[in-house]
């Protein structure tokens, strides 16, 4: 075999190998095509729908505060002599709360008493004049002395009334007393200081009870009735359950705040609409400031198909979900996305109740590695 022929043989062998590889490659891709293709399909994640009750749940805490609060001011602006109550103390109607320094008024009274005494003494002088005029039978002198006595009598009566008024004022302004049975919420008065314009004592009215405010989701508030009695728990060492009457609810609020201490622990949607509700609490042991918690579970629909909110999609034609359609083939099963229109009955933060379009135990797509549309083949 000469060199040329060997080179030709080598070339032919090379081509045979190349052709073999080429054919094997194509055969391989043909047979493994379905598997390879399915690897490039968008991966979808599904959940199974279930049948049941859609519960609107709320769990939150708030702080009890009195329904009526009265701010009691220093009546005359006198200096505070003695503070007789402390914050958190229960007081009876008429009980003295703060005593004030009345030394100034006492001085004034003393002066007024001295003036009265002077008037009474001058009265004696006038009576004596009258007696002399009577003895001397001087008619004109008698007349003028009589008039002077009358005038002095009027002066004395005036002075007595002035003293009376001052005395009653002094006794009234000397102390601050409770206008009703209640709880001292705050004591602002300080011994030795005069009135500063702010109230000296803040007192809650025990007869009007207490209240607590909670911020609950709008969807849940629709399921509550005014006047409905709700059970709330007073937290603390000896936690107990009391009832609160739903008194009023505020307008719909789009943002979740923390007003009135209501902390929405239900979490969920940040943009969920909320409402503040006020519960009236009638309980003898409440003092105000207690931490109370509310647990609410309400449902509107009893037997509907439940789907996670992530699975619900919406467009101009309405709400729909994507389910999977399984098609059996010779090289394995193929899954296709199917759009199913639904009618939403109710929804909470996490779950939606569907009235029509879905059955229980159906797989719905909640997310996918790439956006999918109706009819697309996917990997599941």
């Amino acid at each position: 075999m000469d060199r040329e022929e060997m080179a030709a043989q080598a070339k032919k062998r090379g081509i045979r190998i190349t052709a073999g590889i080429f054919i094997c490659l194509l055969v391989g891709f043909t047979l493994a095509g379905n598997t390879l293709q399915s690897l490039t399909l968008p991966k979808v994640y599904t959940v199974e729908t279930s049948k049941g009750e859609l519960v609107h749940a709320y769990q939150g805490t708030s702080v009890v505060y009195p329904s009526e609060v009265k701010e009691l001011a220093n009546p005359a602006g006198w200096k505070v002599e003695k503070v007789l109550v402390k914050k958190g103390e229960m007081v009876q109607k008429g009980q003295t709360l703060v005593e004030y320094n009345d030394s100034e008024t006492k001085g004034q009274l003393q002066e007024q008493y001295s003036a009265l005494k002077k008037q009474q003494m001058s009265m004696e002088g006038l009576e004596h004049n009258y007696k002399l005029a009577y003895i001397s039978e001087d008619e004109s002198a008698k007349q003028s002395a009589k008039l002077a006595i009358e005038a002095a009598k009027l002066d004395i009566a005036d002075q007595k009334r002035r003293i009376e008024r001052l005395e009653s004022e002094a006794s009234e302004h000397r102390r601050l007393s409770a206008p009703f049975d209640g709880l001292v919420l705050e004591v602002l008065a300080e011994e030795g200081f005069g009135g500063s314009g702010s109230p000296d004592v803040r007192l809650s009215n025990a007869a009007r009870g207490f209240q607590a405010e909670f911020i609950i989701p709008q969807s849940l508030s629709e399921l509550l009735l005014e006047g409905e009695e709700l059970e709330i728990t007073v937290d603390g060492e000896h936690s107990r359950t009391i009832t609160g009457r739903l008194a009023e609810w505020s307008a719909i609020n789009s943002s979740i705040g923390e007003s009135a201490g209501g902390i929405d622990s239900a979490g969920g949607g940040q943009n969920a609409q909320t409402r503040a509700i006020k519960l009236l609490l009638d309980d003898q042991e409440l003092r105000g400031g207690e931490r109370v918690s509310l647990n609410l579970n309400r449902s509107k629909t009893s037997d509907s198909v439940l789907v996670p909110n992530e699975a619900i999609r919406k467009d101009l034609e309405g709400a729909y979900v994507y389910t999977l359609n399984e098609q059996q083939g010779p090289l394995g099963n193929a899954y296709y996305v199917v759009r199913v229109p639904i009618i939403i009955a109710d929804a909470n933060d996490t779950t939606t109740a569907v009235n029509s379009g879905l059955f229980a135990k159906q797989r719905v797509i909640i997310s996918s590695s790439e956006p999918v549309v109706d009819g697309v083949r996917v990997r599941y």
Partner: protein
Amino acid sequence: MQVRKRWVWLPRLALSLWLGSLAILMLVPILLTVTNSLMTEREIGLNYGLLGQMVDTASGGKDAFVNLKILPDWLSLEQYRHVLVLAPKFLRMFWNSAAMVLPIIVGQVAVAALAAYAFAKLRFFGRDKLFLVYLMTMLMPFQVTLVPNYMVIDWLGLMNSEAAIILPGIFGAFGVFMLRQFMAHIPFAYTEAAKMDGAGQWTIFLRIILPLAKPGLAALVVLLFVDYWNMIEQPIIFLQEAARQPLSLYLSYIDKEARGVAFAASVLYMTPMVLLFLYAESYFVEGVQLSGIKG
């Protein structure tokens, strides 16, 4: 003499340059196809994005040059992935082609070799006239025989089946013509000598003629493969069902949006032809030379 000898290489160089540049010119499209098949779809779009918009400058088309880029910015097998993995159609059509072309080649070579032997080496009445009639069918273009072909295939109930392509292919006249020309060059002395030794026609055909006609057979295989691998009209007319169509129609499915995969598809499409040609190259050249047919 000295001067003559010194300049004798000049015409040789000129010829080499001329032929070399011609070869490069011929190879550029293939080179372009192979290198562009390694570009990403995005790069293809950037280079050939103008192609669809240049149809008619009068009606808003652009008057510009298309950027022919030889080297890709970034080597990528993305196009091959698209063709081989994401589009099962390509492979389906590839095997369709193979399933049609292989029976045609085997059948036509078998039929043509026997017929050519008869026309070249047997003496019988009206041989040359019959051969002329046979040749006539070859001389007529496909379009002329289209209607009768269609009617016959419809009558045979072969419409929309591979047999509608394979059967007319097997009985094509080209193979007979080419092998007859080739066998005519085999001296009668070989067959005479075999006859003297008591060999029958079958023995002469199988033992003497076929081995000698090997280059011709190889050339025929290559030419038939190229011819039927590239067929367009027959499958378009006889195979309506897309799942049965051969690979030669695949490129027509590639539209403007999918031009990114056209190069890879083209490379895979021409690979069997190139491999076959390289394998049978020496026979092919010899066969074509001896039969006096230019491919």
